[in-house]
C-alpha cells in the first residue's frame, strides 16, 4: 500500500479557488502532485454526475472548492453548490459511496497556503483510505470510454 | 427565547447567567435606557446598565462586588428596563438569578438584610399555611428585623377595616406545599 498514489480530481471555480491555486504556485508552496484541477466558471456548474463519473473512472478522491459564502462572483452559485453537496452527501452515503472521499471547501483567491494544506491533508487521508476500486465494481462500467 | 452560545465554556458569572437564564449579556451595548427608566435607579449602588457592564467585564473581583451589591435587592421587578431595552435583554431575570446566587453564596449586602428577611418571612408564612397571612408576615418580619415600631399605627386601622385576620387560614394541601418548598428553596 505504501507505493499507492491516489488519483484526486479537483473541481474548482475560476474566480476563487482556481486563482487561489495560482497563488499557491506564485508563492512557490509545494504540495502533493496527486491532485489535478479542472476549471469551471462557478461551483454552481458542478453537478453530481461529474463526481460519479470521476469515481467510475478511477478517482480515489474528489475536491470541490469555490468561493466563500457571499463572495461568489455570480452572487449565489456557491450557495446552490453547497445545497447540492448536502443533498449529494445524503444520497451518496445511502448508495454506499464513501463520502470521506469527497472534500467540499471554500478557498478564496487569497488563500494559496490554504489550498496547499487542503490538498496535502486530503491526499494523505485518501492515501490512508486506499484505492477506491469498490465503486468501479459497484458501477460496473461496461465501456469506460463510452463518452470519449 | 434562549440565545444559544456554544463558545462560552468558562464558569465566570457572565457564562453562568447565560446558562442559568439564557440571557446573553454580550448583547448589551450600554445605551443606558434601562437605567434611565429604572424607578429605583437612585437607590442603587449599581444601576441596571452598570450591573450589565460589571458582568461584561468578566472580572471575578467586580463580579464579587456585584453579588454583594445592594442594587440586586433594590430592583422592584417593575420590568420597565426589559420593556424598553432595544436589545430585549431580560434584566429582571438576571436580577433574580443574581439574587439567588448572592443568597446561596451568602453574600447578601448588609443593607439588604431587611428586604431578604421580608421575603423570607413572606415565604415562611406561605410555607406554613399555604397562603400569606399578613398579620403573621408583619409579626414575623418585625421579629426578624427588630424594628418593632414601624407600621404599628397601621395594624389597628387594618383590623378596623377587617383587613387583618388573627387566625390565618390553612389550605388542605399544606403538606404538598411543604414538599414543594423542601424540593426547591429549602433543598439541603
Amino acid at each position, binding site marked *: 500500500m505504501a507505493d499507492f*498514489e491516489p*488519483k484526486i480530481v479537483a473541481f474548482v471555480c*475560476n474566480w476563487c479557488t*482556481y*486563482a487561489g*491555486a*495560482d497563488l*499557491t*504556485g*506564485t508563492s*512557490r*508552496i*509545494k*504540495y502533493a*502532485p496527486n491532485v*489535478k484541477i*479542472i*476549471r*469551471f*466558471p462557478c461551483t*454552481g*456548474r458542478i*453537478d453530481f*454526475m*461529474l463526481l460519479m*463519473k*470521476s469515481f467510475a*473512472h*478511477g*478517482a480515489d478522491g474528489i475536491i470541490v472548492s469555490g468561493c466563500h459564502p457571499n463572495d461568489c*462572483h*455570480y*452572487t*449565489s*452559485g456557491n450557495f*446552490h*453548490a453547497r445545497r*447540492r453537496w448536502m443533498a449529494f452527501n445524503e444520497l451518496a452515503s445511502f448508495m454506499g459511496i464513501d463520502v470521506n472521499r469527497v472534500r467540499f471547501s471554500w478557498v478564496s483567491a487569497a488563500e494559496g497556503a490554504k489550498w*496547499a494544506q487542503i490538498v496535502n491533508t486530503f491526499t494523505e487521508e485518501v492515501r490512508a483510505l486506499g484505492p477506491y476500486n469498490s465503486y468501479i465494481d459497484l458501477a460496473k462500467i461496461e465501456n*469506460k470510454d463510452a*463518452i*470519449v | 427565547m434562549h440565545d444559544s452560545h456554544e463558545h462560552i465554556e468558562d464558569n465566570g458569572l457572565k457564562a453562568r447567567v447565560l446558562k442559568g437564564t439564557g440571557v446573553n449579556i454580550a448583547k448589551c*451595548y*450600554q*445605551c*443606558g*435606557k*434601562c*437605567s*434611565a*427608566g429604572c424607578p429605583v*435607579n*437612585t437607590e442603587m449602588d449599581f*444601576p*441596571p*446598565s*452598570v450591573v450589565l457592564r460589571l458582568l461584561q467585564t468578566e472580572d471575578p473581583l467586580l463580579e464579587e462586588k456585584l453579588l454583594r451589591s445592594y442594587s440586586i435587592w433594590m430592583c422592584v421587578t417593575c420590568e420597565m428596563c426589559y420593556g*424598553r431595552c*432595544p*436589545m430585549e435583554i431580560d434584566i429582571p431575570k438576571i436580577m433574580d438569578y443574581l439574587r439567588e446566587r448572592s443568597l446561596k453564596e451568602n453574600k447578601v449586602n448588609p443593607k439588604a438584610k431587611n428586604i431578604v428577611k421580608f421575603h423570607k418571612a413572606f415565604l415562611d408564612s406561605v410555607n406554613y399555611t399555604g397562603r400569606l397571612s399578613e398579620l403573621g408576615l408583619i409579626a414575623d418580619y418585625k421579629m426578624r428585623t427588630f424594628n418593632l415600631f414601624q407600621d404599628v399605627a397601621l395594624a389597628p386601622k387594618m383590623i378596623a377595616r377587617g383587613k387583618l385576620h388573627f387566625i390565618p387560614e390553612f389550605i388542605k394541601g399544606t403538606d404538598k406545599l411543604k414538599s414543594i418548598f423542601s424540593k426547591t428553596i429549602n433543598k439541603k
Partner: protein
Amino acid sequence: MARIGVFVCHCGSNISATVDCEKVAAVAGQFPGVAYSISYKYMCSDPGQTLIKEAIKEHKLDGLVVAACSPRMHEPTFRRAAAEAGLNPYLCEMANLREHCSWVHDKTEATTNKAIDIVRTLVEKVKRNTPLFPIRVPVTKTALVIGGGVAGIQAALDIANAGNKVIMIERDPSIGGHMSQLSETFPTLDCSQCILTPRMVEVAQNPNITLYTYAELESLDGFIGNFKARIRKKDKGIDEKTCTGCGLCCTKCPVKKIPSEFEQNLGFRTAIYVPFPQAVPNKPVIDRKNCTYYIKGKCRVCEKLCPTGAIRFDREDEIIEVEVGAVVVATGFEILDTDFFPEYGYGKYKDVITGMQFERLASASGPTQGEIKRPSDGQVPKKIVFIKCAGSRDPAKGIEYCSKICCMYTAKHAMLYKHKVHDGEAYVFYMDIRTAGKNYEEFSRRAIVEDGARYIRGRVSKVYEKNGKLIVSGVDTLLNAMPVEIEADMVVLATAGIAGKGAEELAQKLHISYDQNKFFSEAHPKLKPVETNTAGIFLAGACHAPKDIPESVAMASGTAGKVACLFSNDELTREPIIAEVNRFGPPLFSTCVGCYMCIPVCPYQAIEKEQIKDRSGNVIKEVAFVNPGLCQGCGTCVALCRSKSIELHGYSNNQVLAEVVALLND
C-alpha cells in the same frame, strides 16, 4: 479526425526546471488527434506567438493547447494569436503547467507525468470545443433615471453631459427630493436650496434630459441595452404648455388647510399647488384627493380664474412607453414618523418633532422663515433636547442598523439652534458619536466646543408632557448611569432613515434584489457597489442604504460613469460563455420538459418561459429560454437541469466529462 496543436512553453526555466518539457511535447505528439506538437522557451513572446500562428496555417490546425502558465494570465494573449491566424479564439485552451505544476512540485517523474496528464485533459477538451462568437447586443443610448432627488439629478446631469439622452421620472410634482427640504448642509453649513436649485434648473433645461414629474414606473421589460419601460404620467389637472405658472390658481383655491408634505405638516398648502417656491417644474398640480371638484363635483374656481385657461378637469392618467438602454434607480429613503415611538408619546406631543421637521423650522423658506418656534404655541424654545438613534440601532422596536447621517445632522441642528437662539440650551442624548468623513469630526466637535451643545451619553427612556414642558428622562452613562431629567420646550428625534415607500414593489418590477431592510442590494459589496445583479440596472443614493449628500452624489457620479461606459459603444460584445437551452426541429423542439427549476436558481433572472408555436400561432410546447443578454454564464442552471437540456458554452457536459475521463485514464 481532429488536428490539434500542442505548444509546450518552458517559461524560461520556470516550467522546464521541474518539468521535462521536451518529453511532454513528445508524448503529447502521440495523443490521438494531435497533429503537431512542439516546445519553446517563451511561447508568449513575439517569436513564440509567430510560431503558433504559422503552425496553425501550415498544419491546418483546428484546435490549440498552449501548455504554459495560468489561463488567468495569458489566455487572452494566445486566443488573440489564434484569431490573428484565422482560428476561432475559443478553439484555443491553456494547460496550466506553471502555477499548478512546475511551481508547486519538485523535479520528479511524477511532476512531468502530471504535466502530461494536464495536457491530455485539455487536448480532449479542445477536441470538443466549438467555435464561439462574442455576443453582440445593440445599445439604446438613453438612460431612465427613477427619482429626482440629488442622487438622481447628479446621475442624470452626468449621463446627459456625456452626450447621452436621459429620461427622468419623479413621483412628486417637483424634483429636488429631501435635499430641497434641508436648511443648511454639513459640514460647511451652506444653504441647501442655494446649491441644489441651480442643478434642478439645469435638469429642466438640459436638451438631453426629458423630465416627467408626477410620474411613476409602471413596468420594465427587456435586458441590458434594450429595456422597455412603461411610465404612468399621473394627471396634473393642467395643460403644461399653456400654464405660465403665474400661481393665481394656488392663491385663489378655497381648500387652504391641507398639511403640506414639503413642510412636513408644519405648514399648509392648497388643493391645486406648487410644493415649494423653487419647484421644478414651477407649475401647479391638482391633488385629486383634496380638490373640492373631485370630491363634491363642483367648485372649479381655478378654472374660472386661470388667465390662460390651462386648467383641465377632463384628463386621466397617461401611460407612455419608452426604450432605454440602462436604468438608474435613485428613489431615495424615508424617515420614521414620531408616532412610531411609544416611549416618546406615540406622536401625541406636538413639540416632539423629527429631524426633518426641524430642518423646515430652521429653513429660511420654511413655515417660520427660519425662526425656531415650537409647533404647539409658536414660542421660541429655550431648552431643546435632541435624541439620537431614535429607531436606529434598536432591533426590538426599530431597525437594527445605524442610520449613519444622524450624528452629523444632529450636531448641525444643535449648532443652528445655538446660532439662532443665543441664550438657549441645547442637549444631545447620544450613544456614540459616529462622524467619520472629511471635516466631519471637526464639525461635530465644534458643536460641542464652540457652540456649547451639551452632549449626554445615554439613551432617553421616556418623554412626557407636563404643564407645557416636555419632561425628558434620560441617564448619563458616564456618571455611573445617573438619571438626568430635563424640562425641555422642544424635543427633536433623530429618527431612523428607512427604505422608501414601495421599495419592495419597485424592486420586483425591476427584478433587482433588496436586503432585509428593503434597501436595494448592490451586485458586489466591494467591487460592484453601484451595479445591481441585473445587468444594465444601477443604483444611486440612499435607496441603497442611508447616505448623506456627498456620498449620494459620489455614488450617482459613479453610476453615471458606469452608464457612460455602457453607452460608449453602439453594441455590447460579451463573452459567449453563456448557457443555452437546446432547440431541435419538430417534433421534439427541445428536450426541456418545462419543470422550470432553472428559473428560480438563476441569479440574473435570465431564464424565462418560451412558447413554441406552429405557423398558425397555436402553442405546441412551452420550454425554458435563456436570455443571452442577461446570462452571465455561471452554469448553475446547467448543473440543476434534470433533463440535461441546458448547455454552458465552453463548459458543456461533453467537454467536462471528456476532461474527467482523460484526466483519470493515462
